[in-house]
């Protein structure tokens, strides 16, 4: 789960990781009253959306007066911000973070993430702060410091030194840098983060180290033990159909763009493979939808309704390999949904596995216009014909 920069900074404060003074504002008046408390100018006004590249997209601006804070907040709140991470449709900005400007002498990059290959947490750091770390990794991989931490042992003092000296942190800041890094690691572990990134982390003229930016992703599977962080979820940042699907525990991803074939599958791997098959047959998948192994008729019905509510969908492919989810249960769900919602587009059904005969019988007896496919190849051809 992604959270906003201002929320990440709330967590930073909780863990004594220094951040610039500031606060979130939902309109110009609020932005101005926050700016008044900062004790001077310039003040930075930053759009709060779940995407990087906000500065380049025009979502981060510097204000030299209170009046300008109001003007900029007005400009940014309500704008559709387009960055390399939002896609061409962009994201509507609903709030800004208003922060004090700092006298920066150096910008650094710092992140912590779980490394799947080694099952260790890894701290990545670079002196090339403020830059796209992927570009740095590609062009000058030796400029990235990587320190691996055994999660059973936790962070040790020598880890802190390796990062600090690796980044050439000046003597007067060394102590506070290491304290900050230790706190960040605690935050990372305590909150089950799947990413904690500060880009840039800055050193100021008065020898302070601060997180100028903050990005935190939290492991969705661990949210049950972080009720406070779960409250950070912002459904305005999510696709409305995905929000709807999540209510029914359906794993749905809207692929956007020009997808014209909706699909419903059980199991993530088969769902991805089904998307690929649709594309190879000359059509375009509109979504990923994994109804899961333990789906019941109601979940299938809700999945079906969500697929149909995407206006781009011109046909639907249902591909179920019955294991735990039996084909008769699936068939019942599809028939119920089709009767309730109405079949506005052609539906190709491919079923295999547990109780497949019973499933096919239920579909046939429904007298609905469902196209049955014999196998995957057949399903791909039939779905392509539907949208041609």
């Amino acid at each position, binding site marked *: 789960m992604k959270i906003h920069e201002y929320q990440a900074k709330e967590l930073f404060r909780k863990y004594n990781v220094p951040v610039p003074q500031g606060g979130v504002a939902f309109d110009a008046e609020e932005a101005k009253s926050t700016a008044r408390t900062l004790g001077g100018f310039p003040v930075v006004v930053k759009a709060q959306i779940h995407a990087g590249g906000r500065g380049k997209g025009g979502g981060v601006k510097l204000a030299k007066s209170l009046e300008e804070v109001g003007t900029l907040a007005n400009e940014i709140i309500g704008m559709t911000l387009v960055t390399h*991470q939002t896609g061409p449709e962009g994201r509507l900005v609903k709030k800004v973070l208003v922060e004090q400007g700092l006298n920066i002498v150096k910008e650094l990059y710092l992140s912590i993430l*779980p490394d*799947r*290959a080694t*099952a*260790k*947490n890894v701290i990545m750091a670079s002196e090339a702060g403020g830059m796209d770390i*992927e570009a740095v990794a*590609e062009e000058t991989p030796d400029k990235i410091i990587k320190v691996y931490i*055994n*999660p*059973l042992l936790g962070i040790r003092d020598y880890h802190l030194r390796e990062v600090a000296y690796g980044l050439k942190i000046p003597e007067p800041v060394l102590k506070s840098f290491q304290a900050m890094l230790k706190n960040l690691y605690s935050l990372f*572990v305590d909150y*089950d983060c*799947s990413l904690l990134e500060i880009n840039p982390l800055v050193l100021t003229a008065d020898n302070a180290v601060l997180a100028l930016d903050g990005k935190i992703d939290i*492991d969705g*599977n*661990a949210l*049950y*033990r972080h009720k406070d962080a779960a409250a950070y979820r912002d459904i305005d940042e999510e696709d409305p159909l995905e929000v709807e699907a999540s209510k029914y525990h359906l*794993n749905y*991803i809207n*692929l956007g763009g020009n997808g014209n074939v909706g699909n419903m*599958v*059980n*199991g*993530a*791997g*088969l*769902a*991805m*493979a089904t*998307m*690929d*098959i*649709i*594309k*190879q047959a000359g059509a375009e*998948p509109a979504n*990923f939808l*994994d109804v899961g*192994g*333990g789906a019941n008729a109601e979940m299938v019905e809700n999945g079906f309704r969500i697929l149909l509510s995407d206006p781009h969908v011109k046909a639907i492919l249902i591909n179920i*390999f*019955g*294991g*735990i989810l039996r084909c008769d249960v699936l068939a019942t769900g599809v028939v119920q949904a089709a009767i309730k919602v109405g079949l506005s587009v052609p539906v190709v059904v491919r079923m*295999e*596995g*547990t109780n497949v005969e019973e499933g096919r019988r239920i579909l046939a007896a429904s007298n609905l216009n469902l196209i049955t496919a014999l*196998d*995957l*190849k*057949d*399903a*791909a051809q039939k779905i392509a014909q539907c949208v041609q």
Partner: protein
Amino acid sequence: MSIFVNKSTKVLVQGITGKEGQFHARNCIEYGTQVVAGVTPGKGGQKMDSVPIFNTVSEAVRFTGANCSLIFVPPPFAADAILEAADAGVALIVAITEGIPVMDMMKVKNHIQNLPVRLIGPNCPGIITPGECKIGIMPAPIHKPGGPIGVVSRSGTLTYEVVHQLTAKGIGQTTCIGIGGDPVNGTNFIDCLDAFQKDPDTKGIVMVGEIGGSAEEDAARFIQENVTKPVVGFIAGLTAPPGRRMGHAGAIISGNSGTAQAKLEAMAAAGIHICRDLGTLGELCEKTF
């Protein structure tokens, strides 16, 4: 022959009295698997059908000689269940549970690395040696006993699809393993490839990967250097967008890494027979094996 499990494997089921645990334990027993014990804390002394239930894994192992544990414990308690089995000396642990926090699995992995234990999963369908034993949730009838093909996959239903196509072409399987869709798991592709290479009855291997991480690239390098048997490979997720988790916690393209394209290229370079269209996998296997 087979790898990792056979008809003499003695299985205990952790979480045997839960809805899923009970359902699948019964299916495994029906298939012929020796399910010798169940473990549910607080229900020791009771029975699930004729299977004795114990409060702890170590007790179950002591009384029944179980050497494999099949885990259906819910995510918040699953890491603990794996550790309990590992510390009780169970040699093979098959964790079906989906949704274990990554931080928990990292600790588990670092702990069991130094123990004589093999973990399969989590978030996996389990392992089956057709005709001998089924330790997992896969539908039994799609499998064909007697080999000669080994199947290893990161997915569940996608594996069923692959096995189904093999069986439809009259090609049997030695052992089929789902290694799971989580970013941090136990047994990896290389462990399975190595075992299949050494198993005299396995004549060919089907390897099913997906986007995310670099396990397929690592496996491709291993195959190039160590595997002489023919390998057919498939990767799911060519059309998956970057930065989104595609159902499996581990199925995510991060920046430029973990793409299906890169995996396919690495696999092709290693001499693996690439299947680009899942609908034709059975035909490709028929031709290759």
